[in-house]
C-alpha cells in the first residue's frame, strides 16, 4: 500500500465535492439553456433567468438530498431492514467488535432478506454510517468469514469511500432518469411537433421540438460521461484497498478470502440488484441465474475487480505468515 489512509480520505472528500460541483454546473447550465430556448422570441432574458433559478433550486435540493439521504435511498433500494441486538446478537456483536478495532462509532446494522450472499456499507461519514448484510451471508458464513466481510465494509467507512459511492447513487441516478425522460419527450415531442407543423405551418411547436432535441442530445452525450465517472469513482483500487485494510483489522486475511470464495462459488441471484447500487456491494450482485460474471475474467463494465485476484492477493498477505503483523504495522505507520 503506497497511499496512506489520510490521502485516501482527502481524495474521497475532494472527489465528492467535485462530483457535486460538476452535477450542479450541468443542471444550472441546462436550466439556463432551456429557459433561453423557450423565450428567445420575446427578445428578453426573462425565460433564461427563470430557467436558471429553477435549475439552481433543483440542483441545490438534489445535492442536499444526495448528501443527507443517499444512504436511506441505497438501503431502501436494496430492501434492507434495520435490526435490533435481540434479533441478530451475533451480527451486532461482530459489527461492534470491528468498530472498536477500527476506532469508529458503531454503525447502524441492516439485514437484507434474501438467499444471495452480499453486503455493503453506506452513509456520509463514519458518524452516520450503516452496514447492510444479506440473510444468506449470515446463514452460510462462519464467524471469521463474517468478520472479514464486516472489516472490509468498516474500511470503506473509515476511508470515506461510502460518501462518494453513495452520492454517486443519487446524482448519477438523477441524471440517468432525467436523460431518459428528456429522450422520451424528445421522441413524443418530435411526433407532436411534426403534426402541428403540417397543420398550422410551424411556430411554437417547432421551438419546443428544437429545445427538446438539444436537451436530449446534451443528456445523451452526458449520460455515458456520468457513467464513466461512476466507474472511475468505484475504481478497482478502492476494493483492493478495502480488502487489505479489512485484513489489517481482523489480522486474519484468510477470513475475508474464504468469504469471497463462498460468495462467488455459492452465488445466488439477488432480486434487488440494480445498476445504480451494484458498486456499493462487496461482490458484484446479479439479478438472475446465469447473469453472474466469470470469477477469473473481467471486463471494463465490471464494478469490481475479479474475485479470484482479490482472493489471491489476500492469501499472499496471509502467507507472509509471521511477517504479516510486521507488514501491517508498517502500513499503519503511514496513518
Amino acid at each position, binding site marked *: 500500500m503506497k497511499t496512506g489512509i489520510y490521502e485516501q480520505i482527502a481524495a474521497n472528500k475532494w472527489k465528492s465535492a467535485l462530483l457535486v460541483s460538476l452535477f450542479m454546473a450541468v443542471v444550472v447550465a441546462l436550466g439556463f439553456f432551456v429557459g433561453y430556448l423557450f423565450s428567445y422570441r420575446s427578445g428578453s432574458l426573462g425565460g433564461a433567468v427563470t430557467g436558471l433559478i429553477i435549475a439552481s433550486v433543483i440542483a441545490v435540493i438534489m445535492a442536499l438530498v444526495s448528501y443527507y439521504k443517499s444512504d436511506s435511498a441505497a438501503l431502501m433500494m436494496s430492501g434492507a431492514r434495520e435490526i435490533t441486538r435481540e434479533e441478530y446478537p451475533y451480527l451486532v*456483536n461482530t459489527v*461492534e*467488535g*470491528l468498530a*472498536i*478495532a477500527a*476506532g469508529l462509532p458503531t454503525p447502524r446494522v441492516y439485514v437484507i432478506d434474501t438467499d444471495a450472499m452480499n453486503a455493503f456499507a453506506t452513509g456520509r461519514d463514519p458518524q452516520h454510517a450503516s452496514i447492510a448484510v444479506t440473510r444468506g451471508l449470515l446463514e452460510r458464513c462462519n464467524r*471469521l468469514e463474517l468478520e472479514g466481510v464486516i472489516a472490509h465494509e468498516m474500511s470503506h467507512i473509515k476511508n470515506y469511500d461510502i460518501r462518494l459511492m453513495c452520492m454517486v447513487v443519487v446524482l448519477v441516478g438523477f441524471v440517468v432518469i432525467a436523460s431518459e425522460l428528456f429522450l422520451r419527450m424528445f421522441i413524443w415531442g418530435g411526433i407532436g411537433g411534426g403534426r402541428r407543423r403540417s397543420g398550422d405551418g410551424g411556430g411554437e411547436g417547432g421551438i419546443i421540438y428544437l429545445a427538446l432535441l438539444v436537451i436530449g442530445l446534451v443528456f445523451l452525450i452526458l449520460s455515458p460521461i456520468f457513467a464513466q465517472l461512476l466507474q472511475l469513482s468505484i475504481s478497482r483500487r478502492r476494493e483492493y484497498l478495502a480488502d487489505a485494510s479489512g485484513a489489517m483489522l*481482523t489480522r*486474519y486475511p484468510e477470513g475475508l478470502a474464504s468469504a469471497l470464495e463462498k460468495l462467488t462459488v455459492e452465488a445466488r441471484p439477488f432480486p434487488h440488484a440494480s445498476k445504480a447500487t451494484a458498486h456499493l456491494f462487496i461482490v458484484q450482485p446479479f439479478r438472475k441465474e446465469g447473469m453472474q460474471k466469470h470469477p477469473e475474467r473481467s471486463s471494463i463494465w465490471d464494478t469490481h475487480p475479479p474475485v479470484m485476484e482479490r482472493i489471491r492477493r489476500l492469501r499472499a498477505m496471509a502467507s507472509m505468515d509471521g511477517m504479516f503483523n510486521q507488514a501491517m504495522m508498517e502500513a499503519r505507520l503511514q496513518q
Partner: protein
Amino acid sequence: MIAVVIIIVALLLLLIVGFIAIFNGLVSKRNRVDNAWHQIDVQLKRRFDLIPNLVETVKGYAAHEKEVFEKVTQARAMVTQAGSVGQRAQAEGMITEALKTLFAVAENYPDLKANQNFLMLQEELSGTESKIAFARQFYNDSVMVYDNARQKFPGNIVAGMFSGKFPDKEYFEIEAPAERETPKVQF
C-alpha cells in the same frame, strides 16, 4: 529593511503555527491511547458482569462440575482483589482460561446446550471476548501512532520539550487470531 523584518516575522509565525499543530497532534494521539485503554476496561467489565449469570445457568444442568465453577469464581475474585495492572492482566487471563474450560464442559450437556438463556450468554461472552481482543488491538495501534508522532522528527523536539506531558505507553502483547476463536455457536 522592512522587507527583512516582514520575512522574519512571517517565518516566526510559521514556526509558531507549526509548533501548535504538532503539539495538538501529540495531545490528541495521547488522548486516543488513553481512550483506547478505557475501551478495553469497558469490555472486561462487561465480561465480568456476565459471569455470575452464566455460572447460575450452567449450575442448573451440571451442578456437580464443582471444579469448573470454583475456577471461574476464583478468577473473578482475583480481578476484584488485583492491585497492580500486571496482577489485573493475569487475573483477566485466568478468567479467559476458566471460561474456556466452562464452555468445554458444557459441551457434554445436550440439555444445557439447548437452553435459550445459555445460548444467549454464550453468544454474548464470545462476542465480548472478541471485543476485548479488538479493543487491545486498537490500543496497540494507537500506541504505535502515538510513538511514531513522539519519536519522528520534528515531533520528537516538541515531545522532548514537554517530556512530562507525553509519557511512554506500554504495548499489549498481540494475541494470535486462533487464540481469539471462542467456542462456536451453531444457529
